[in-house]
């Protein structure tokens, strides 16, 4: 027990330190923008831009801005345009000539804001098929490597000797695995079939959990808002949807269209309940998508919002900025701890709901009259 307590203390202080540095790159950038605003144009500090720069995907990985130098990692851009075919170049080139390379540029406004567009000769913009390795894709690959290295090394220890007491990262993983096994999968899906779905549930849980945690780490290679991106959550929810649909028992589909427990007038002549039920099938993954996306994004926005307060106040008076910074940091640390909790809870909720949906699809309505 004392070891576990010590580990918790170390972890807590680790994250506390992280949050003292939280969003430092963004701050530096904001500072720079502010400084630049003084000299070039009286541009005000824009909280929305700061936050959206962090929340949204980008074609380069911005690490810090020191003075006027942007320190960022250029990432490969891969696009297929119906007009000019395949293009492959590093995103650093987009800065070279007026933000326009080979007819491609990142739109600053309009429908494709912050996305790569091809500028046609007549001035209209076209969105090409965009397979770019963006910041989020890079983060995805990093997390993939991290997850694989963690679990393959843990699996190796298990394969060597199953009876050995867990050690190191293994003892951190094992209770969570057992928890998902015994408290999520078994009660939700049922004792007979839960083992078939365990690999998916475990993978989903650890993917979300580890990416949530990585999103809380404010510097490279963390700090990308991966699980707060709707494309990512959509794919995860689609996996749940596909698995649920393919494992649905006959009675699951029959009950959806014609539930014998519902009075006839709700089914005929207007098939009210069947419509609601079928909508529910698509609503479930939709809700999964939105919940994870909104929770993680909201956490990032709130944490950054507290930081922005410093600069909003500093615009009025530099002393107000210093004064409010104490409060802001206190709040951000609090938010950071809260987000640590949310990181686990959201991973848990996603896994639990996926398991429940699968369990519902598998259910045999034999006792139903």
């Amino acid at each position: 027990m004392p070891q576990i307590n010590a580990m918790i203390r170390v972890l807590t202080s680790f994250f506390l330190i992280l949050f003292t540095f939280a969003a430092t790159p963004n701050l530096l950038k904001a500072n720079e923008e502010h400084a630049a605003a003084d000299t070039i144009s009286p541009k005000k500090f824009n909280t929305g831009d700061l936050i959206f720069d962090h929340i949204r995907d980008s074609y380069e990985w911005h690490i810090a801005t020191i003075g006027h130098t942007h320190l960022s990692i250029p990432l490969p851009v891969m696009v297929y345009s119906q007009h000019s075919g395949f293009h492959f170049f590093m995103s650093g080139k987009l800065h070279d000539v007026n933000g326009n390379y080979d007819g491609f540029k990142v739109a600053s406004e309009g429908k494709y804001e912050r996305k790569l567009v091809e500028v046609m000769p007549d001035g209209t913009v076209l969105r090409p098929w965009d397979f770019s390795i963006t910041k989020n894709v890079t983060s995805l690959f990093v997390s993939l490597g991290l997850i694989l290295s963690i679990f393959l090394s843990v699996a190796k220890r298990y394969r060597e000797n199953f009876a050995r007491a867990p050690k190191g990262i293994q003892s951190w993983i094992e209770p969570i695995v057992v928890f998902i096994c015994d408290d999520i999968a078994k009660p939700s899906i049922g004792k007979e079939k839960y083992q078939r779905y365990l690999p998916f549930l475990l993978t989903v849980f650890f993917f979300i959990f580890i990416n949530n945690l990585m999103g809380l780490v404010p510097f490279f290679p963390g700090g990308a808002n991966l699980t707060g991106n709707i494309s990512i959550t959509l794919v995860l929810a689609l996996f749940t949807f596909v698995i649920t649909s393919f494992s649905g028992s006959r009675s699951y589909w029959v009950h959806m269209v014609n539930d014998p427990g519902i009075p006839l007038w709700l089914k005929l002549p207007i098939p009210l309940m069947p419509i609601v039920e079928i909508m529910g099938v698509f609503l479930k993954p939709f809700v999964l998508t939105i919940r994870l996306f909104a929770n993680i994004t909201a956490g990032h926005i709130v944490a950054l919002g507290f930081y922005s307060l410093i600069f909003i106040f500093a615009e009025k008076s530099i002393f107000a900025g210093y004064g409010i910074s104490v409060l802001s940091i206190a709040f951000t640390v609090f938010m950071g701890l809260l987000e640590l909790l949310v990181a686990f809870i959201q991973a848990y909720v996603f896994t639990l709901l996926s398991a429940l949906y699968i369990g519902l699809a598998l259910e045999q309505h034999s006792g139903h009259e």
Partner: protein
Amino acid sequence: MGLVMPDFGLFFWMLISFSILLYILKRFAWGPILSALSDRERSIEEALKSAENAKEEMLNLQSGNEKILKKAILEREKIVKEARELKETIINEARHEASIEANKVMEHAKAAIDRERAAAVSEIKSLIANFSVDIAEKILKEKLADDSRQKELIQNYIDQINLN
């Protein structure tokens, strides 16, 4: 609006990455981990069960031992009792036989004594008879030393015979 619209590129990469992750983890991580966990659970359960069994066996053994001990004690008491009884009977029998034997011997002795006495008495009788004859002879010899006496005696006898 861009925030809530899925992006094709990221969607594409995520689909591929997650599929690969799911496959690799399922094949190389979850399989061994889950089977190891269930193996461990089973082995712990078995160990507990066998410990319980051993304990029960111990108890059985102990109670068995006690039973055997009790039985042995009873057996010993029984044997001792039997031995005591046997001893008593043997002694009694011996005593009985001895007394019978003694009686027999006594009777024999008595009979022998009687016989001897009878013999002795008869011998003494014959001796006494002889002595008396001798004595009578001597007396007669002395009394009949002279003829007068003989005559007197004869006369006496004759008188007596006459009287009768």
